[in-house]
């Protein structure tokens, strides 16, 4: 009697585990920096990812009429153009740490969700812009 239930229980647990791991594989969203993407673009083709980085200075184009937002995300090494539809959050501005959730469409990243990384202490960038190491540090801090 006891073994019967044990077997039944193991089957249920097994089924759930299979579902969970299979399900997890498909619904994981990777957090990627632009240079990580550039190393291996094929890995992220058609996958939902979260692209992290800083908004490159002077690249923001926003038209409130059409709600089209274009900007470039950079980690100081690689630049990636991003297109997003919708109002940018209030804190969205040059050199702000952002995370864009979406997919790549060719070389352009189509954002579906735009998040600002709150670093409550905002600092003006140094003369000549950030070095890649500084950018990486800023992104890490802002996370």
């Amino acid at each position, binding site marked *: 009697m006891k073994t019967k239930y044990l077997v039944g229980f193991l089957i249920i647990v097994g089924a759930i585990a299979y579902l969970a791991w299979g*399900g997890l594989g498909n*619904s994981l969203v990777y957090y990627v920096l632009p240079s990580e993407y550039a190393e291996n673009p094929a890995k992220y083709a058609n996958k939902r990812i979260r692209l992290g980085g800083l908004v490159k200075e002077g690249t923001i184009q926003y038209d409130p009429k059409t709600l089209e937002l274009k900007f470039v995300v950079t980690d100081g090494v690689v630049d990636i153009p991003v297109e997003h539809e919708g109002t940018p959050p209030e*804190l969205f501005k040059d050199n702000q740490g952002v995370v864009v959730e979406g997919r790549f469409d060719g070389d352009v990243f189509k954002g579906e969700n735009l998040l600002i990384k709150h670093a409550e202490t905002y600092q003006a960038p140094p003369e000549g812009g950030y070095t890649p190491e500084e950018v990486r540090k800023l992104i890490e801090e802002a996370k």
Partner: protein
Amino acid sequence: MTPGMLGNLGLGMAVLFSVAGLMAAITAWIARDARYVWVARRAALVAFLGTLTAFGALEWALLTDDFSILYTARNHTSASPTWVKFATLWAALEGSILLWAMLQTFYTWLAGRKMRDYWTSPVALGTLFVIQLFFLVNVLFVINPFTPVPNPPADGPGPNPLLQNHWMMAVHPILMYLGFVGLSVPFAYAVAAMVTRRYQTWVAETKWWLIFAWGFLTAAIFAGGWWSYEVLGWGGYWAWDPVENASFIPWLLATAFVHTAMVQERRGLFRSWNFALVTLAFAATVFGTFLTRSGVIESVHAFAGGPVGPIFLGFLLVILAVGFALLGRVSSEVRDVGTVNLWSREGLLLLGALVFVVMAFVVILGTLFPLLVEAFNGAKVSVGAPFFNQLFVPLGYAMLVLMALGPLLPWRKADPETLRVVVWMTIALVLGTGAGLALGWTLWVSLTVGLFLFNLVALAWLIWNPIARRSRALGSVRAGMSAAGWSRRRYGGYLVHLAVALAALAIAFSQSYRLDVQKTLEIGESWQVAGRTITVHALRAVEEPHRYSVIADVEVSGLGTLHPRLNYYRTSRTPFASPAVAYTLGKDYYLVLQAFDQQNSQWVTLRLVVTPLVLWLWVSAILMIIGTAMILWPSGRRAARPSAAGEVTA
């Protein structure tokens, strides 16, 4: 006397008397003398009065704008309206844990009033004293809100704007803690049961506490969902955020336990399982705090970290170790009376409980998975809603089937009569699903409609059958109705089941058919969308003491004028959008002021989210609370209690 001094005095008193109470409980256990239990109960009352004093002292500091202590200096501002000042006590970590400690001492005292013997009472009371000492020592020594500030500021930054944006945030944490703390009493009784080797009666003795805690957890989760809907501005009520999951895991485990506790009470089965489940459920309340306060998990709520995370993790491990070590010690002698036939009420109750435990496991896995992946290969991942939905949809269907069948089947063995009802229920299921598909709804939504009807037929039969049987015997429906009697507990359980089925329907529709659009409109311009005309009439600004608001007057044809707004708090760089919702029985129209023309006030950008049946989710929450209250309400006939108790089928 200052609030800081009074607060520390109260906390010190609470710690001292908790230690004294613990000593008295231990003495009672060793000496086998019930008089020391009496002493411990008195100590519990004094400890509660101590935490109540500390609670009052912190309210005193908040309401009189005393910034000489750490908590007010960091989390309070004199510009807050009075209700925000009052609720600021639980707007940040230190105050929340003080509230938790206060409720824990209150429950210890309340639960202690029933404890009189020298055998199980000392252990149960001692366990409760240890639990409350954990919180008290934390509040007094680790995160003391009354720590004096050397140079008191003239004013503080105020609580998190998200929390003062809606009155529900003043209520939600209290509901949550009332639920969390309530689970400590069944746990303490379970520990006592395992130590004193009385494996059966503890479940019946703590049933009231369990259902009480379950009711508050339910209320808290729905209140949190409603807050999220009304405040966060994305038009949803649940995002599988770690903070939400932290409250959901204890609820799932408590729900499983509510059901198998019934089986143990009635049939003496699943005793080991119940010991394990109550340990997990209580541990989950601490796990939630660890998760949200430790900073290990990224969350939109992003609470402050500090030393509390590791301390709570340690406490969590202690709870699990104590619970399972005791269970391991006695498991060979914990025997069930009889065996389980799967096609019976107890069999389905077990399956239902398994579904809830698996759900809890899925939530834990999904919440912790990012940590595991990062630990193993350094990749940063997030587990999105698709993962949870993928698993919760089939599990939810299993739950809907089991919850309809469970109350129908008699204990021990199914009878042929119930099979006839199941045929009718299946017809309803097929018709409902077919009608849904014919109307063009998705398979999942149609199936939910079918299962809703499946439940409805079952509940109708459950209510009607006893009346019909007696009517036949007595010759009139009226006589049958009065003879069938009014078993409040049983109908309370049915009402909760009905509400859960209704919630499933609301969730299926609102998740599947959602319209989410944005548009920039000139002032005076109209927008034809979702069968309505939306017109922006004006954009205006309002100045309040604690904030500055920009408000759009937007007319939605047939539903009146809505006022979505952006609130600017003094202490925050970002504005907080306060959506405006037109609730209707069919669809909700949810408007968010996304942006506005800051130079000339010529245009606004609006976000419109149209979601069907969301209102019914809140209705189902109210029904669940009413159902729980019906179960809990003391029955007038004391003698009838034991038999009525077994019939609760929630």
